[in-house]
């Protein structure tokens, strides 16, 4: 049967892997190509490379990184981070990326999703949505209000998150990468109610992101949370959880997984 996916996220800046808490205090966790290859070997199901480089060199270094990862790694990977131009999407896919993830650019210009999906196929287009709960004191999950943010959570995009996810999927996104900025870096678990609301609202797979700290968090977001995939960074990078250990735990908990080994 189709299994749920575990995804390791590599935040990359100037060709090096970094990961912060709530997107500040970046720490160096190694060489992205070596790290990607190690995760593939350990049995991770997929990888995401998020490039946060903000220099004029970005395009060239990112394409080079994508080529190097594609050369080494025998599992699918997505690349994202400040990508907006059709030509850049094409160059990254031709360099060996399986999917490109878009965020701010498609909020500015939602029609870009339609254009990219027509041109490259929905399977190659991931829309990343960074959302924050704007009423933290909501009495129940049904009362939670979630807004879309950009620029690492600093700027509100003026969009209600579930509605934006639905629109992105209808325009042709093949997958939604859903990050709760309210949970990212906390290690207290994923945003379960929010993930479930989005998973129920869209007909395409949803990757949950933000808040992973322990094995039960993965079970919760993949089963009751309804996510098709769970993404994490620090818990993998710093060795808190091994891919094999986590998969064995999830298999024992009744989550469909591609076994390791």
């Amino acid at each position, binding site marked *: 049967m189709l299994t749920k996916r575990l995804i390791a996220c590599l935040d990359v800046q100037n060709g090096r892997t970094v990961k912060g808490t709530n997107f500040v205090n970046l720490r160096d966790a190694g060489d992205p190509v070596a790290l990607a290859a190690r995760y593939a070997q350990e049995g991770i*199901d997929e990888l995401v490379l998020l490039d946060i480089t903000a220099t004029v060199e970005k395009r060239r270094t990112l394409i080079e990184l994508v080529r190097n990862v594609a050369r080494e790694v*025998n599992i699918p990977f997505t690349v994202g981070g400040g990508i907006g131009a059709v030509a850049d999407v094409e160059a990254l896919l031709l360099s060996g990326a399986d999917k490109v993830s878009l965020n701010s650019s498609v909020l500015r210009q939602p029609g870009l999703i339609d254009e990219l999906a027509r041109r490259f196929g929905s399977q190659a287009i991931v829309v990343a949505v960074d959302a924050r709960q704007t009423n933290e004191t909501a009495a129940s999950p049904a009362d939670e209000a979630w807004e879309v943010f950009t620029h690492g959570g600093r700027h509100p995009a003026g969009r209600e998150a579930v509605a934006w996810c639905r629109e992105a999927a209808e325009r042709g996104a093949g997958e939604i990468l859903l990050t709760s900025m309210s949970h990212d870096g906390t290690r207290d678990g994923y945003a379960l109610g929010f993930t479930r609301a989005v998973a129920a609202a869209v007909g395409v797979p949803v990757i949950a992101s933000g808040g992973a700290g322990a094995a039960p968090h993965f079970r919760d977001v993949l089963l009751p949370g309804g996510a098709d995939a769970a993404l994490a960074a620090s818990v993998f990078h710093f060795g808190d959880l091994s891919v094999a250990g986590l998969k064995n735990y999830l298999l024992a908990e009744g989550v469909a997984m591609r076994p390791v080994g």
Partner: protein
Amino acid sequence: MNIAVIDYQGGNVQSVLFALERLGVTNAVLTSDPAVIRQADRVLFPGEGEASSAMRALRAAGLDKVLPTLTQPFLGICLGMQLLGRHSEEGPAGGTELLGMLPFDVVRFTPPDAAHKVPHMGWNNLHDLQTPLFAGLGGQLVPGDKLGFQSGFNQAVEARQSGNSLPHQPIAADYVYFVHSYYAPVGDYTIAQASYPAGVPFSAGVRYRNFYGVQFHVEKSGPVGEHILRNFLTGDLG
């Protein structure tokens, strides 16, 4: 051994070239030249994206006439497999006429409930495997006799048992990576199945004579994918 990867602006050829490189094949040629394709010992036909634009690109390159005449082992991947069929529901009004090399019609997944997403995306297990393309995998091997490849199958198994051949990594389960919204139903041409939703099988692999196709991304399917690709390169595929 000469290996041709068909280039028709139809998808992620780079990933296929890299996968071959990881298996030690560094001389694969990316080409749309019929003469080069005809001379190759193995032909790989990747495909991604949308069926009607892929067919347009194939016709523009004249490859729709060349491919059906090939005689060496040939492997269509993902959309490259689907294009071997007769017709696809994908495409502008009425769908798309395909190459017509295998007798299947490609249809869209119709999910029974909101929990089943389309595309069918992720790792799924293969079952009901036939032909030497899948020799050595841990799934249930069903030596097929109706298509007459029993002997090739046995040879591959014997080669493997005698230690002369391929597999280098132990493979616990036959999970491979799929991303597709359309599928070929199961038929006489089916040599591997996967199921989506659970219990509802579709063609994960197809074959007619020398023409093989796999719905999954063999080039991105970890050790299982590498094993199948190695079988394709070195197996007796008739």
